[in-house]
């Protein structure tokens, strides 16, 4: 069977599965719609959390980023896993004990304030929408690349599938679909990695293969260091990202941001007990770690194969352009791989020197997708990778859409505007807001705003600088009051946005960047994407200072804090 038929078959089968689950797992109450009834097994929730968390970026882009950043790419590996340690110890168990349906609901109860709730909703919606735009784009691109349909057709197909199971089943439908999506995603990721690791090192486990020797007896990483430095690139295992300070702060921002992302936190409202919430965080991390420890192996191995195929240290061994392999031609056709014969010798020079380098474009995103082709794996593996990439994008999009929809129906409509509506009306409202959220995300998918590329900074920055600190202080301090929390959130976001926009323009419109005379990354050499941790520190400090000079928290809130700190119901 040809590749396109196989891909169609694989993607079609997974979509049929998602729809089957949607019909089986319909939500009949708000409790089922928001928290899947609150009785999901911790291992099942761990798996769903892993799918919820690992997006198209983790699946497609991360290994490619690390392949070119080398050691500097470690920030993503540590940052996007270490956040679960914070989540497991500082947030999840207590928020589960409180038993709210949404993150802003907890903030509203703890800080006895509708204003705090509205501020939290705004942060949540901005962070989630910027994040969902990336997923929508991922879905459209995956379809257009693998099934050769229009970007628009792909986007509509993907959105319709999410529409069916998210609107019908809410959190319940999303949970069971995410479990299926995790299984598909992890198989699709690990199979090519196992093949390639075995091919290069004789060890089928990629995590061990990365530390093993190649056929010629040298260690894989030593060989890679040698090859890339010979070509004028930075040494793979030591190349840093800007500076040690920047890497430190960047990692911290990603960790705090991970722990503060509402669509991830919400997943821990679906387990039955506090104990289950703690364990579930562990299982989520296990399922995430399977992919995250495989990724660096994929990175190094694909960089090695790519470099060795194209260029050899001694120029007479260079690959002749006319003899390039078929995967090279396939990716050239997509425009993601570009060759320009600068010295007209018909050979490909791939070097770290921009003036002589003839590989003018090697898009990072092709590393994971092209891997099976480069390693000469059968067509069904390539088809599986396509289905896996879609599963990653769909599962994250659904989780984010639910976070947005519940913030609108539960926090704004029920919590602030119309507390008197019945459960039935709220369930209808939650379905309608889900439809609204999908339509909005679809609109951005069709008209990706100019600022789409810079939005990851915004999503993590906002989650780190606003949501994480108020949640943590709400649990661990009885001192922080309403005024402190609101001032803290606003100043945390304010500082983060100021730094990001100062570098990249207001809402990423570059012509509006201000303070143009200041040097880039002026604050201790920290890049804007890494600024969330600084915003969080500002949030903590301001909240503490404002709380010290304003009224104490009411007695009943103190009792509430005592209650969320212990697992036992009273």
């Amino acid at each position: 069977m040809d590749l396109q038929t196989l891909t169609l078959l694989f993607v079609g089968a997974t979509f049929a599965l998602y729809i089957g689950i949607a019909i089986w797992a319909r939500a009949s109450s708000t409790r089922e719609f928001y928290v899947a009834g609150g009785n999901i097994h911790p291992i099942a929730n761990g798996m769903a959390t892993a799918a919820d968390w690992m997006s198209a970026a983790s699946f497609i882009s991360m290994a490619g980023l690390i392949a070119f950043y080398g050691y500097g790419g470690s920030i993503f590996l540590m940052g996007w896993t270490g956040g679960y340690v914070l989540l497991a110890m500082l947030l999840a168990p207590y928020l589960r004990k409180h038993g709210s349906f949404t993150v802003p609901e907890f903030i509203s109860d703890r800080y006895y304030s509708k204003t705090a709730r509205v501020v939290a909703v705004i942060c949540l919606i901005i962070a989630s929408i910027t994040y969902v735009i990336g997923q929508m784009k991922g879905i459209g691109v995956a379809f257009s690349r693998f099934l050769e349909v229009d970007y628009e057709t792909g986007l509509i197909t993907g959105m319709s599938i999410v529409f069916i199971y998210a609107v019908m089943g809410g959190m319940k439908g999303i949970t069971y679909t995410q479990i299926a999506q995790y299984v598909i995603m992890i198989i699709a990721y690990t199979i090519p990695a196992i093949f390639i690791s075995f091919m290069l090192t004789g060890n089928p486990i990629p995590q061990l293969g990365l530390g093993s020797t190649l056929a010629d007896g040298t260690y894989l990483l030593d060989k890679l260091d040698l090859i890339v430095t010979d070509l004028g690139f930075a040494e793979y295992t030591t190349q840093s990202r800007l500076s040690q300070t920047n890497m430190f702060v960047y990692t911290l921002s990603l960790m705090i941001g991970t722990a503060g992302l509402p669509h991830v936190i919400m997943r821990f409202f679906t387990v039955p007990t506090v104990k289950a919430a703690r364990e579930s965080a562990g299982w989520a991390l296990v399922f995430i770690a399977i992919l995250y420890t495989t990724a660096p192996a994929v990175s190094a191995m694909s960089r090695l194969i790519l470099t060795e195929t194209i260029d050899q240290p001694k120029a007479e061994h260079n690959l002749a352009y006319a003899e390039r392999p078929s995967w090279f031609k396939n990716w050239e056709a997509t425009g993601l791989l570009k060759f320009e014969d600068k010295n007209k010798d018909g050979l490909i020079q791939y070097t770290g020197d921009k003036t002589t380098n003839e590989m003018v474009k090697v898009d990072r995103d092709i590393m994971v997708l092209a891997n099976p082709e480069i390693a000469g794996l059968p067509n069904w593996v390539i088809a599986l990778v396509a289905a896996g990439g879609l599963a990653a994008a769909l599962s994250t999009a659904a989780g984010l859409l639910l976070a947005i929809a519940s913030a609108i129906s539960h926090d704004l409509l029920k919590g602030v505007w119309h507390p008197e509506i019945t459960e039935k009306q709220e369930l209808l409202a939650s379905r309608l807001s889900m439809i609204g959220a999908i339509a909005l995300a679809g609109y951005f998918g069709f008209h990706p705003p100019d600022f789409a590329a810079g939005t990851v900074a915004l999503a993590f920055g906002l989650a780190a600088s606003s949501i994480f600190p108020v949640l943590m202080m709400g649990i661990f301090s009885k001192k922080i009051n309403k005024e402190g929390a609101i001032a803290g959130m606003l100043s945390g976001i304010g500082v983060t946005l100021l730094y990001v926009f100062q570098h990249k323009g207001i809402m990423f419109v570059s012509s509006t960047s201000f303070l143009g005379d200041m040097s880039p990354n002026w604050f201790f050499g920290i890049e804007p994407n890494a600024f969330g941790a600084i915003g969080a520190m500002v949030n903590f400090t301001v909240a503490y200072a404002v709380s010290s000079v304003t009224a104490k928290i009411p007695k009943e809130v103190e009792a509430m804090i005592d209650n969320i700190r212990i697992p036992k119901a009273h």
Partner: protein
Amino acid sequence: MSSNNDYWKANISLILKCLIIWFCVSYLFGIVLVEELNNLRLGGYKLGFWFAQQGSIYTFVVLVFYYAKKMSDIDKRFNVDE
């Protein structure tokens, strides 16, 4: 009430212990001391690089389960389990 306070103190000290390890394996071994540790090797890995791309993640997994297990024991000891 005082037993609840002791329970909370036990939780905090366990969290601090876990976060010290969390900090060491990622920020200390993976970033601050990476050059020094890279002089040592673990098979084909430079040790600092291994911590940054493998070891820290394995430790995180162990830490979360260790915390869950210990907390479960503490819950029972203070008779606050569900």
